[in-house]
């Protein structure tokens, strides 16, 4: 292959490593991809943008051999290829990294890196494998005990192992499908460092993310998909977030406008010196009616744990909780629920929704007792009416509330989950990563809903790793680091810089007590 690559933003014209020509794919009634053509050059980071269902995933699955295109061609290094399986894609030098890293928890780190080597010989040379794994990780600028099992690695460490795996395969094309969705801002920067390293080594990278600012930070080219069609491909210099979003949704959306505050005087929830042994401590704040309080911090700072403690899933071991001025004890989720606290978890699939059940059954599940007739049977008609009101109120897009939740898109599942908890009439609503993995259009909707709920007088806590989101939504921002509350900033003082400073453990100069400013 030609090695005279332009080191900077791909100024030198060379043949693309990967070329996709007129690819189309149909699933039953849905045209998932229509006449898509795209080329990817060595040392180029090419971002794919689009709402959920726009066709990005289908394209990725075609490139990695999971699906076969109905028509069109894929060329690798100028040669037309048919990629029949993931294993074949790897042989051709195409690898993918997903949002949730797919490691083998029982195998050690080194084996995870080398497991997909088809040519690793019949006998495993453990010593050599450990040495090689150490070497690859060192080249990436990190050390990790490669003899330990992958079980229990942090998400960031898992991503690093995935990247090491890709490097060990000598990939030419690396596909990263929302690799940053579960990472904190700091970890994202570490990941980007690795990605830029790979780019310098001439790897072509296809990068999918819903986070606009990340795309504009790292990508050389940006391609937007909508409804299975490729809408535009622009270089970063030509593109702007506004244009990209307009291309994605077919209309203009502004995610940067701050919500108008509707916080009232009276305190709905007051927390004093709350702690859970070994997890977090010293958390104190007041939440007013109609206020949105943002929880910021790195992943693992203890934000979710505070939410779980308030709701009672993992109860606090010290401190006081006052609800509407009265001291309460929250030991179980049932306590939380009956006290009017609702917690919408970040993990829709595992904690929140029963996927094979209908929308209405999911919505009424926590308070099913309210739907019993005198004979003790469930009044499904009443359930449906409740579900219908939520469908209108939150604009859940579904033909019927009888539909299985599994069939809904991520954004709509999120709305069902919100409906379920709003149906418990909470006075405090805790939202944990409410927009993780949802597209820009749905994100704007979720933001609007949060504003609407606050206006109705609910006190809302938003836990989010998406810092711009926290800043746009919150009246005040509580920042945590390593299980401690670092600061509470008013909207006026909160910006990316002040929040990150606190989250990283540095006190910003203007808030140090006793020092004249």
């Amino acid at each position, binding site marked *: 292959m030609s090695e005279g690559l332009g080191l900077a933003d791909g100024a030198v014209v060379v043949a693309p490593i990967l070329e996709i020509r007129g690819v189309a794919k149909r699933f039953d009634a849905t045209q998932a991809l229509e006449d898509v053509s795209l080329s990817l050059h060595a040392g180029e980071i090419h971002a794919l943008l689009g709402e959920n269902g726009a066709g990005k995933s289908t394209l990725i699955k075609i490139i990695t051999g999971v699906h076969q295109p109905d028509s069109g061609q894929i060329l690798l290094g100028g040669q037309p290829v048919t990629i029949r399986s*993931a*294993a*074949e894609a790897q042989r051709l030098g195409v690898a993918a990294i997903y949002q949730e890293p*797919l490691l*083998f928890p029982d*195998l050690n780190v080194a084996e995870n890196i080398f497991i997909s080597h088809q040519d690793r010989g019949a006998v495993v040379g453990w010593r050599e494998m450990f040495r090689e794994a150490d070497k690859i990780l060192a080249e990436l600028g990190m050390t990790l005990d490669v003899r330990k099992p*992958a079980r*229990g690695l942090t998400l*960031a460490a898992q991503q690093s192992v995935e990247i090491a795996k890709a490097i060990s395969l000598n990939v030419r094309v690396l596909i990263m499908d929302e690799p940053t969705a579960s990472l904190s801002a700091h970890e994202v920067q570490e990941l980007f460092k690795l990605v830029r390293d790979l780019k310098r080594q001439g790897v072509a990278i296809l990068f999918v993310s819903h986070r606009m600012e990340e795309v504009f*930070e790292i990508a050389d080219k940006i391609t937007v998909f909508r409804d299975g069609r490729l809408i535009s491909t622009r270089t970063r210099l030509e593109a702007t977030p506004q244009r990209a979003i307009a291309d994605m949704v077919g209309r203009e959306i502004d995610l940067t406008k701050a919500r108008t505050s509707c916080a009232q005087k009276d305190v709905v929830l007051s927390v004093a010196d709350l702690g859970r042994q070994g997890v977090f401590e010293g958390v104190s704040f007041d939440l007013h009616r109609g206020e949105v309080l943002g929880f910021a911090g790195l992943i693992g700072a203890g934000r979710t744990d505070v939410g779980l403690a308030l709701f009672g899933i993992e109860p606090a071991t010290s401190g006081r909780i006052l609800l509407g001025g009265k001291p309460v004890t929250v030991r179980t989720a049932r306590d939380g629920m009956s006290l009017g606290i609702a917690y919408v978890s970040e993990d829709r699939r595992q904690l929140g929704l029963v996927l094979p059940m209908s929308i209405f059954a999911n919505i009424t599940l926590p308070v099913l007792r309210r739907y019993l007739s005198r004979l003790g049977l469930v009044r499904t008609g009443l359930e449906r009416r409740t579900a219908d009101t939520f469908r209108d109120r939150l604009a859940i897009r579904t033909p019927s509330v009888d539909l299985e939740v599994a069939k809904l898109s991520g954004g709509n599942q999120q709305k069902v989950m919100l409906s379920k908890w709003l149906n418990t009439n909470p006075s405090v609503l805790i939202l944990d990563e409410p927009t993780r993995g949802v597209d820009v259009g749905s994100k704007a909707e979720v933001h609007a809903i949060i504003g609407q709920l606050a206006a109705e007088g609910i006190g809302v806590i938003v836990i989010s790793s998406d810092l711009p989101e926290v800043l746009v939504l919150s009246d005040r921002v509580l920042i945590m680091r390593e299980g401690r509350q670092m600061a509470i900033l008013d909207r006026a003082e909160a910006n990316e810089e002040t929040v990150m400073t606190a989250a990283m453990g540095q006190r910003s100069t203007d808030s140090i007590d006793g020092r004249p400013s």
Partner: protein
Amino acid sequence: MNWLKRRVRPEQIRELSLLVLILAAIVFFGSFIDNYYSFRTFNRIASSVAIITVVAVGQTLVVLTRNIDLSVGSIVGFTAYFVGTLIASHNGINPILAVAIAIALGAALGVVNGVIVAWGKVPAVVVTLGTLAIYRGVLVDLSGAKTVTTDSLPQWLIDLPLVNVAPIGSLDIRALFMLALVIVVAFQIGTTYLSFARRFYAIGSNPEAAQLIGLPIKSVVFLAFVICGALSGLAGFMLLARFGNITVEAGRGLELSVVAAVVVGGVNVFGGSGTVTGAMLGAVMIGTLEQSLFRLGISEFWLDAVLGLLILLAVASDAVILQRLRQLWGGAELKLLAKETDSVSSEQSASPP
């Protein structure tokens, strides 16, 4: 403590504690049963353990892939009976050929299980529960409920269980037990060092990931069932050699002892972790209990209850104790090395408008 953590894995602690439990059980029974510490007891336990172990090795492979083979008892009985009938009618048959036929017959029954589970996508519990009944049913029907008797068998087969291959002092290591040991060692080495055998672990540990990196899941699951069948066939031959008299009931209920051995031996029922050495320790535990409770004159129904209790305890202890140990040990920690800072990336900082 740190030294310990580096040298020993939580899973090995579990195996060690099983060894302690076995010793405790022996001491316990020794204080109740007269003449317990004798070579006779050892040989009885050893020949019972040998058969359970060989099947448990195969079962381990199946369980590693998140499956289970409940039909092993019927496969053992099936091969024991048919190979027994064959030898009874052809007394001059080459012993090696007889063993090979037993293994092939078991493997063939394993093929049926494997095909239905891997390609038919029917859960293994259902498939092998079905074949457990079917294989036994076919056996009863084809045999006309006749019995293989010791006096119809050639002398070499009757003598085989008594052959002493490695006398250690006055302790006998008999042929069948030695065979089981050899199989355990071979499979332990194989599952540690053979690339394709590592796939049993990978597939059970995270099937989704295995799919995505293109591991041949179906063939691996199929292979696990075939090996399990083959080893059950071999165990059928061992059963024939040990008892001589084989009825259509032979090997009935063996699946309970084998699953108990595997689970007590620390093989995770959810797949992905465990070793054949652990399974053998489990088999020793089960074999010791079976023989000792028998000596105490306790009914075999109680014995089954004890096995059931052991399975529950083992699974519960895996869920709780192993979890705790792993937490105590901690995972691998990622450390970033101080690297020469790349000036390219730091120049474009997001400046607020």
